[in-house]
């Protein structure tokens, strides 16, 4: 049991000498795996784009749908989870005075669980026994080991969440009455969502496993879909909150400014945690078995999430304007030009924010009830999420890597790598713009998502999609270049860049900031409100789906 004095000394040492080696090793491991996943996932994405365009034909032993399953899993489960955990753990280490030994232990156990789960998921996918895509909708049934692998991965994430909770709780005990440092506050929100948000899908998978083994006969298809989307919707907002943490806390420091109102920042985090899970039905707007009223309630809850995003847009512009005016910018938008455009640590997250304008706008409109019929399951949706996760989240993560990787590796960002980062960001932006615009357009023309190359029997309609899919493939090729450049930069910064100390850029609050009221720190109340909303949103339809269920379905293998 450490004394407060010892902990204070450790805090000071932490700040003076940078991250301690043990904490660094943990984050480095996670970052390494995240970017390997990016490389592999990127290659798979390129393969898909070329196949859809009719340029590449896949061999018999590897179908488009296996590639798609792996692409989804590697990028939206592995890359995002490993990056998020590696980043926030470095943040907890830095802002809370170093990770506690028991927290490190929990985190490494979490790592081990994920590593055990990974081959259990990947091997069935490679052997064409789990060609069910990352949504694995029953009654399509993969090998039971695929689902067991997923359970291990989720448990691994939970261990890291619990570790974060222990770290934060310990800090709060030693600092009674104080506000949790802001980056740790963001981390708490994300880990709360990771845990509670995954309870639904964990339940779903635990019912699927005995069914896939043949120990139970049938499964409830609609309940499975609903439980899945209670999680998967939350997941995207988890990524969003992670990216937003860098926007609020890091980017203002990078540009030499101050961060936006502390109380409003904490309010946005709390609002996102509370309103996140209950919007899941906007992924099921055209499903049967859910009433119009309940669907509309979920639409309302989904649109409510736009409010903290609008507050975030205001906060970002405000921080830039304040700093820009400080640097002499004048007029309505003259301050804009004063931003450090040549600094990848600003450029990448800025483009990420800009991409969220069409990404968020499209998101609002496509989930407004019957408007969903125009685009559901078309390539429009693929364009949407390549903007939001592929650009907003991913470019923010890339931007973070240019200071985080040197920080945890005790190296420095050189001007050369910074320039490489700027080039990578531009290549990525052009690639995503080409891909996303063509995807949105061809989706409006009716081209379906999750579909390999086809002429639909020489259909003229399908032929009209061809030029857009070619542009998609061109965009995808550019992205592959971006992936390689980015992966190179990361591994270079981790192992080859000159040694030195890199600052962990945390911005200070604005001067003359008023004291943030203490209610923001009442996580118990936040979680309670979150749970109430989930109950309001899900209990009635789930009970309806269970009580009024049709005969359940046995496993089907259609590939």
């Amino acid at each position, binding site marked *: 049991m450490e004394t407060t004095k010892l902990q204070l000394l450790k805090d000071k040492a932490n700040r003076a000498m940078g991250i301690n080696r043990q904490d660094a090793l943990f984050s480095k491991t996670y970052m390494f795996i995240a970017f390997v996943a990016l490389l592999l996932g990127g290659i798979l994405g390129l393969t898909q784009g070329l196949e859809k365009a009719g340029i590449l034909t896949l061999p018999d032993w590897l179908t488009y749908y296996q590639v798609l399953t792996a692409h989804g899993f590697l990028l939206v489960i592995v890359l995002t989870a490993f990056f998020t955990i590696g980043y926030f753990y470095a943040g907890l280490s830095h802002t809370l005075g170093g990770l506690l030994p028991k927290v490190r232990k929990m985190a490494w156990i979490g790592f081990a669980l994920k590593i055990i789960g990974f081959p259990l998921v990947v091997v069935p996918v490679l052997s064409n026994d789990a060609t069910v895509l990352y949504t694995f909708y029953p009654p399509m049934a993969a090998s039971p080991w695929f689902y067991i692998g997923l359970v291990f991965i989720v448990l691994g994430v939970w261990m890291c969440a619990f570790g974060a909770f222990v770290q934060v709780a310990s800090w709060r005990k030693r600092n009674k009455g104080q506000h949790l440092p802001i980056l740790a506050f963001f981390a708490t929100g994300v880990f709360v969502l990771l845990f509670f948000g995954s309870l639904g899908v964990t339940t779903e998978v635990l019912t699927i496993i005995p069914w896939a083994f043949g120990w139970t006969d049938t499964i409830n298809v609609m309940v499975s879909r609903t439980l899945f989307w209670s999680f998967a919707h939350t997941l995207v907002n988890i990524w969003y909150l992670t990216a937003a943490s860098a926007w609020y806390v890091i980017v203002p420091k990078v540009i030499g400014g101050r961060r936006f109102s502390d109380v409003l920042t904490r309010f946005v985090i709390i609002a996102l945690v509370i309103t996140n899970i209950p919007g899941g039905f906007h992924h099921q707007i055209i499903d049967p078995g859910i009433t119009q009223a309940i669907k509309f309630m979920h639409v309302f809850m989904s649109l409510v999430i736009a409010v903290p995003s*609008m507050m975030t*847009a*205001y906060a970002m*512009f*405000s921080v830039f*304007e*304040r700093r*820009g*005016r*400080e640097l002499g910018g*004048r007029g*309505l*938008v003259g*301050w*804009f030009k004063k931003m450090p455009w040549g600094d990848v640590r600003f450029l990448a997250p800025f483009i990420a924010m800009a991409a969220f*304008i*069409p990404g*968020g*706008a*499209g998101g*609002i*409109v*496509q989930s*407004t009830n*019957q*408007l969903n*019929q*125009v*685009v559901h399951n078309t390539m429009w949706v693929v364009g949407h999420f390549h903007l939001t996760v592929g650009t907003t989240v991913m470019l923010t993560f890339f931007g973070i890597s240019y200071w985080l990787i040197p920080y945890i590796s005790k190296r420095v960002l050189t001007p050369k790598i910074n320039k490489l980062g700027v080039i990578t960001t531009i290549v990525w932006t052009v690639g995503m713009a080409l891909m996303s615009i063509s995807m949105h357009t061809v989706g*409006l023309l009716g081209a379906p998502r999750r579909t390999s190359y086809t002429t639909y029997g020489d259909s003229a309609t399908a032929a009209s999609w061809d030029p857009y899919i070619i542009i998609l493939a061109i965009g995808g090729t550019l992205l592959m270049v971006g992936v390689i450049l980015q992966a190179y930069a990361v591994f270079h910064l981790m192992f080859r860049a000159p040694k030195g100390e890199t600052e962990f850029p945390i911005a200070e609050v604005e001067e003359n900031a008023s004291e943030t009221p203490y209610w923001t720190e009442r996580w118990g109340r936040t979680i309670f409100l979150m749970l109430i909303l989930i109950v309001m949103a899900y209990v009635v339809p789930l009970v309806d789906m269970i009580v009024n269920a049709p005969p359940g379905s046995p496993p089907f293998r259609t590939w």
Partner: protein
Amino acid sequence: MESKRANREVEHQPDHDRSEKGTLFSVLMVGAFIALTFVMMFGIYMSRV
């Protein structure tokens, strides 16, 4: 009187360093984009009804 006029001058002088007009303009542009996106999609939906 002297001090009153000085006070009035201070009131009328815009605070350049703290102006948030650019921010308001930017977010209103974002709002316009959201509105336009809705109009476009609603238009497509209604044209197919």
